Structures are given as C-alpha cells and as structure tokens.
C-alpha cells in the first residue's frame, strides 16, 4: 500500500541524505521524494511516497522521528490529503497536430509552455493518477522526454502538519 508521509526538518546540510539513507538502510522503498523550503526559511518540508504495510509505516515514522533534525512527521491518510505533482512533457508535434493536442490539454488541465517546429512542451500539475491518464492520451504523438517533481501533499480543511 502507498503511504504519503510529510516531514518537517531543520534546513541543515546533509539532512536529505540522512532521510534517504534511513529509507535505504531500513529497507523501505521510496516511490517519490520532494523537498522544499517552507514559510520559515530554517525549515524544509519533505514529502515521501513509500510502499509498505502498516507495521512498516509505523516503524518509518518512529525512525524518522528519531533523526535529530526532524521537527515533525505525519503520515497523511489518503482520504484527508490533497496531493499534486508537476510534470513537464516534451512530445513530437507537427503543425497539423497542434490544435488536436491543444484540445487534449484544455480538457485535461495542462498548459503548453514551449513550442518548436516539430515539438511541444506541456506542463501539467495534478494527482499522480491524473498525470498517468494524461500521459496515456498524449503517448500516441510520441513522448520525447518527461520530467516530474514527485508528489507534494497537504491536509484538507483547516488542519496543518503542526497540529
């Protein structure tokens, strides 16, 4: 089962390697990892999507909490989180295909951010599942390159990670 874990950490040198090292040496598999600074420049927020059973996640939370740089760890329940992932896709696109691609993008909520005589670069930000559907739709044109940020997530409603 997939778990989304949010971690607030001190923005110290080496903190990311401490976290990723912990995952590998305890045998936890990471699907994605995203990190960025928060409203407090001394604090970074890491979002990890990992695979494992309940026991694994409990262990993971405890081990993450044990790291000296960790401020807060929270495993977000699937039905109480909002998640997004940003993806940039470069596809083959001749001038005849452009309007067709544009329609798909409009329906799926993607934007066109660059264009060349034979390619288009698309940007989409949504849930991992939506991204997968979008990828299926544009695959026939020929994907040249994909880059994605990894999932970030936040709780629904007024709750925050600190509470």
């Amino acid at each position, binding site marked *: 089962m997939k778990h989304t874990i949010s971690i607030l950490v001190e923005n110290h040198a*080496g903190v990311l390697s401490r976290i990723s*090292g912990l995952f590998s*040496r305890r045998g936890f598999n990471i699907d994605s990892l995203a990190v960025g600074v928060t409203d407090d420049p001394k604090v970074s927020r890491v979002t990890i999507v990992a695979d494992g059973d309940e026991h694994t996640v*409990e262990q993971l939370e*405890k081990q993450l909490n044990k790291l*000296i740089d960790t401020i807060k760890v929270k495993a977000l329940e699937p039905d109480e989180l909002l998640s997004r992932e940003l993806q940039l896709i470069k596809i083959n696109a001749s001038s005849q295909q452009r309007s067709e691609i544009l329609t798909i993008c409009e329906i799926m909520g993607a934007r066109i951010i660059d264009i060349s005589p034979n390619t288009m670069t698309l940007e989409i930000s949504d849930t991992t599942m939506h991204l997968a559907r979008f990828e299926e739709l544009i695959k026939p044109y020929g994907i040249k390159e994909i880059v994605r940020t990894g999932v970030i997530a936040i709780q629904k409603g007024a709750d925050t990670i600190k509470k």
Partner: protein
Amino acid sequence: MIKAAEAMVKCLENEGVKVVFGYPGAAICPFYDELTHSDIHHVLVRREDNAGHAASGYARISGKPAVCIATSGPGATNLLTAIATAYADSIPIVCITGQVSTDQIGCDVFQEVDITGAAEPFVKYSYLIKDAAQLPRIFKEAFYLAGSGRKGPVLIDVPVDIQQTMIDFDYPESVELRTYKPTVKGNTMQIKKVCEALKAAERPLICAGGGVIAADACRELRDFAEKTRIPVVSTMMGLGIFPTEHPLYMGMLGMHGVRTANEAVSKCDTMLLIGARVGDRAVCSPKFLAETTKIIHIDVDPAEIGKNIHVDIPLVGDCKNILGELSAHIDNAERKDWLEELSRVKNTVPHEDETQGYVNPKMFIRKLSAKLPENTVCVADVGQNQIWTCNNFNFKGGRFLTSGGMGTMGYSIPAAIGAKMASLESEVVAVCGDGSFQMQMMELATIVQEKLPVKIILMRNNRLGMVRELQTNQYGDNQTAVHIADGNPDFVALAKSYGINAERVCTMAEAEAAIEHLCESAEPYLLECNVWRNESTL
C-alpha cells in the same frame, strides 16, 4: 579572539573531560598543538579504532561521554568500526576527526575522505564544521546528544583551516534543540497498566538489557524486582546488573545463554523488557514469544518499541525514572511456586570434565572471578572467550563490558585500557582469544606507555573457535580459515618483549597458581591458557 583549535580544547575542558584517546595526523595537528597547553591527558593508542574502543570503555565506566581523536582520511576510516560498535551498544562517545582544508573538500586531496558521509548510518549525529564561529555550540550539542536520551556516538569533523581560524570563545551553558527532547517521565496511564498486568501475572519475568546500566538504574531494578519478587534474566549487555548469585537472578538468555534463563523465558506468561532491544541473539523467535506471552516494553527510544517484537504495553521513558514510579505504585508479592520452579533448574550444576594438558576455560573463569575483588571490571572480547566469560563469571557488583551488538573482535584490550583510565582503583581484566588478541595486540604498547596494570587472559585454542564450532555443526565440520596455530607467535615471549609479565598455563592446577599471581600483580599481566581446540562454547 582565540584560535578555534584552542577553543576545541576549551570546549573539552568545559565538558569536564580529563582524558582523551587518539592518534595524530596532519589535519588534526592544530588541535594537538593546543592540547599540550591543557591538563587533559592524551592517551596515544596504536591504531585509531582502539582510540574509539578505549573511549567506549572509559564512557561505560565513567557514565559520561568520552572522547577519541583521529586525523582525516585513513585515521578517520579506521575509527569507523569503533563508531559502529559504540552505536550498536548505545555508548556515548564524541569522535573528533581532522579534515582537509575547506577550500580543498571535494577535490580528493591527500588523506581526504567524506567521514560524516561514511559514518552516517551509525552515528547518533554528526557535524562537519564549516563556520568556525559555530564550533562552541556544536561541541556543546555533541556532548549533550551523545550522553542523553538513547546514548550513542557523535562525530565532529573539523577541517584544518577551521582549526586555525580566530573566533570569539563563549561556551554555551545550554543547548537549544527544538527537535530533540527525549522522554524521561513515563506516561502515568501506561505505568498503571504495567502495574496491573504484573499484578495479574502468575509467572512474570523481567528481561534487563544494557539500557538499565546506561540509565544508571541497576539499584532501582533490584529494588523493584525484590519488592515484586519477579525473577530476572539479562541480555549480554545487561550482565552485571544483578549479582550472579542473587536468588531472583536466572542468568543470561538467548542463543548462548543458560538453561535457567531460557526456561524462564519460555515458561513466563508476562515479560517485562527493560532497556533491551530484543536482538536476534537474545530472542531468536520474537513472533512465537509474543504469541504466548504478554509483552511489556520499557525503553527510552520509542523506535525500539515494536521494532522486533509485538508489544502489548509500551512505556517510553528513562528506566531509572520509570522503575522508581513502578516501585511506588506496585504492591509487594510472593510468587513462591514460580520462583521455586525456576530455582530447581538453576541449582542443577553442569558437569564438566578436565581435558588432560588443557585448561578448562569455563572452570577457569569461575575460579578467576572467585579470586577477583567485587568491583572488578571484566571486559570480554568476542567469540568463545566471550560466552565462556558471560556464563561463568560470578558477577558480584563490578562491571562487565563487551561488544554486544556488533560483536567486534579486538574490543577487549582497548576497552580495558579506557575502563582502567576511568577507574584506576578497580581491577580491570580483559578476556580474549588468540584470534581476537591478534586484532589488538599493538595496544600492549599503550598499556606499557601508560603504565596501566591491566590484566589480560588469553584463551589460546589455536582456532577461531566460534567459527570453527559453526563449521563443525553446520558445514559438515569443513574447517576452513579457522586454524591459526601455524602463525601464532609465542604470546608469553611477545608480552615479555613489551616488558609485560606473562605466564602460560596448561592445567587447572597451574592456572589456579597463576590466578594468584595475576591478582597479586600491581603491574600489567598476561596469562595464556592452553585451551583444547574443540572446546565447546556452551
């Protein structure tokens, strides 16, 4: 303004450090230069890992974080085994390494290695100092982290140019770590639950580990066990908490433990684990145990609870604090039947034979411990010598040190050096095999240079005995790479070449006379026991 190197020394002085163990090199020379202006005594070891093990021995006896020092590159990598050893056994050491100049970091210059990166999986925390002004804060934090909560090794890597930088020195009085607040007091509800579970239990058992010693809670545990009349077994790291002959004490459990302890584990209905991490050598099948037994787990590290065994009642906090609370809230009990049942097993004395021309190591350890004073620090190495010592040494109130979690061969002599430095008034005895002795024999030089009357027992069976036994039992007796007789030196002559008194004994009668010499000697002493090559561990 003072040099950061001088500030490093001042930090150590502020932490009350009296002795440090180390080995110099170019990248740590500014610090060594300043150390000569201090009263701190530097013990020069003969290889860096032994500085770490010596610090470990010192920390375990003094109860405070101890310091080891190495230079960059190979000096630092040599320290790694000692750091991992301390991490596995939760021993508070502060390791200071020199590093190449900050402008050269990442250029693969001479003796450069990413030691904070290499040590990351087995340090409690590490620092690479890049701003000299932060040095006092970092040292303060390092000592605090190493010696609080679940103790462990902390590494401080100091580039050589940082050591030469001038800084304002102001040692902080306290640390400010918003992310690190170990739980001391146990949750009141959980304490109540533990008391109720123990009250309801018919055959309760306490399993005490090294955490009890780390928390300085041996007296509290004894008081608690005596009040509730609950029998006690210990892990290897917990040996010495209870006197061997205490009526409630049932011995060491596990793969290499004694029958009484393992019977107690299999028969108990409720097990109180305290400061023990349910290591695989102590509890081989935790799943099975948890199915038949109610498990209570007390530990300062929440991540240990539920890691290796399913726990019914978790209780996080400092053992000393919690045991005090438990004793205050629990009623006295009798448990006559349960204790009688266990004592019957305990009182069956195992039969042992003497093999002609050899010293029986089990009998030897019993005789030795009978002659040693109560406050003896016994340091066992790793292998058969370790198990012989664990199961036959009569602990009366002294201390037992060994590398429990990592099983690091070559631990005993440097750790004994550290222990002796921490407690000059105690008798300190290291027990090792001919295999493990040769992983640390360069430290005889340190013993001599420091004039430390450390006593060494060398069990020579001309084998790497533990592995030999494993090959005999599980690999069809295909003995390979375990025969060391052909390379063994004359150990007595070797010791004498260092100026250390030494003797070789081949019978129990000779051994008994030699034990007298060993105990009477006010100088270092090495006693080589000729042990039969196929002597069994248990």
